[in-house]
C-alpha cells in the first residue's frame, strides 16, 4: 500500500517534471444543471479549435458524462495557454426520473437517463477530487446562487486549493444580476458573460489565461 502509493507519487512527480514546460492544465467546468456549462464549453472549443464538445439542452442532465476537449490553445496578448476543457454534468444531491417524464419522455427512457445522470454526477465528483487542476464554476445569474449545492461545491473546491473562477452566465437576460453572485462568493473573482450570445468573451479568455495559464 505504502510502497505502491510511494511509487505512484514518484511516477507522477517524474511526469510533472517531464511536462513541466508545456504542462497541460485540465480545467473542469462545474455548476448546477442548466447553468450553461455545455454552451460555454462549446463556445470555448469552437472559438479556439473549431469544433464543439457536446449537445446543449434545456432538459436538465443533458450532459450525463464528463466530456473532455483536449489541447484548447487560447492566445492572449502574444502568449498562449493550452488547456483541456472538461464539461461535467450538473452536480445535485437528488435525481428523480419523473423530472424527465415532464419532458415527454417514455418511462424507460427517463429511467435510463436518470441512471446515466446519477453516474455522471458521481463521476464529476470523482474528477473534482482526482483529475482537475482548476475550476470554472458556472452559475445562471437569473437564479439564486445561495444554494446548498453551490456552497458545498465551492467549499470542496476551496479545500482542494484549486484555482477557481466564477462565471455569472446569461447576462443577456433581463432578470440577470451579477451582484447576488458576487455577494454569495466574495472570496472569488466573478466574471459576467453570456455563453449563448458570446457577450464579454474577451474578459473571459483574459481571466482564463490569467488564472490557468
Amino acid at each position, binding site marked *: 500500500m505504502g510502497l505502491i502509493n510511494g511509487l505512484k507519487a514518484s511516477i507522477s512527480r517524474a511526469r510533472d517534471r517531464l511536462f513541466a514546460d508545456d504542462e497541460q492544465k485540465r480545467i473542469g467546468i462545474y455548476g448546477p444543471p442548466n447553468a450553461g456549462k455545455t454552451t460555454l464549453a462549446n463556445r470555448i472549443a469552437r472559438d479556439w479549435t473549431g469544433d464543439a464538445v457536446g449537445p446543449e439542452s434545456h432538459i436538465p442532465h443533458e450532459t450525463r458524462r464528463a466530456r473532455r476537449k483536449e489541447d484548447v490553445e487560447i492566445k492572449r496578448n502574444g502568449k498562449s495557454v493550452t488547456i483541456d476543457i472538461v464539461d461535467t454534468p450538473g*452536480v445535485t444531491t437528488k435525481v*428523480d426520473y419523473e423530472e424527465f417524464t415532464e419532458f415527454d419522455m417514455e418511462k424507460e427512457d427517463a429511467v435510463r437517463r436518470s441512471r446515466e445522470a446519477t453516474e455522471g*454526477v458521481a463521476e464529476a465528483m470523482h474528477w473534482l477530487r482526482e483529475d482537475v487542476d482548476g475550476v470554472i464554476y458556472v452559475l445562471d445569474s437569473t437564479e439564486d446562487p*445561495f444554494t*446548498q449545492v453551490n456552497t*458545498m461545491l465551492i*467549499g*470542496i473546491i476551496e479545500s482542494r486549493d484549486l484555482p477557481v473562477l466564477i462565471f455569472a452566465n446569461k447576462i443577456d437576460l433581463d432578470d440577470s444580476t451579477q451582484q447576488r453572485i458576487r455577494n454569495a462568493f*466574495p472570496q472569488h473573482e466573478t466574471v459576467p458573460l453570456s455563453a449563448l450570445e458570446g457577450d464579454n468573451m474577451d474578459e473571459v479568455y483574459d481571466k482564463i489565461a490569467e488564472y490557468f495559464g
Partner: protein
Amino acid sequence: MPETKDPDDDGVQIDLISGERMSGMTSMEKIRMILDGVHEGNIVILEEGLSPDEESRLIEVTMTEISPDGFNGIEIETYPRAKTNDSSFLDRLMGKESANKLTVIGPANQIETLHKDETLISALVSRR
C-alpha cells in the same frame, strides 16, 4: 445505528448525532451511517457536519444508491459559511477552520427546505 423505529409507526425519526460520536468514525463510516438512516426515512442531524471531502464522497455515494421508484437522493442543509472567508490553506491544514456547522440530511422525497439564512434553517418534513 440507533434502534430502528417500529414499522407500524408513522412518525418521523430524527437522529441527532454528536460531534463526539462522529469524531471516532472514518469518513466511510460516517457516510454509511448517514445514508443508512436516510434510507429508512430518518432525518439525520449532525452536530458538527462533514468535511468538504466527506461532503464530496457523500454526494458520490448517494448517486450510486439512487434507483427509480426507490431512493431518489438526499436533501442536505447547512448554514452558509461566514461571508468573510479569508482562512488560508495553512489554517485549514492546522484545523483552525473547523467543519463545525450543524448539518441536516434527509430523504429528498420527504424533506423540503422552506427557508434558510445564516442563522436559521426551516424545513418541512413529511411522512412517507
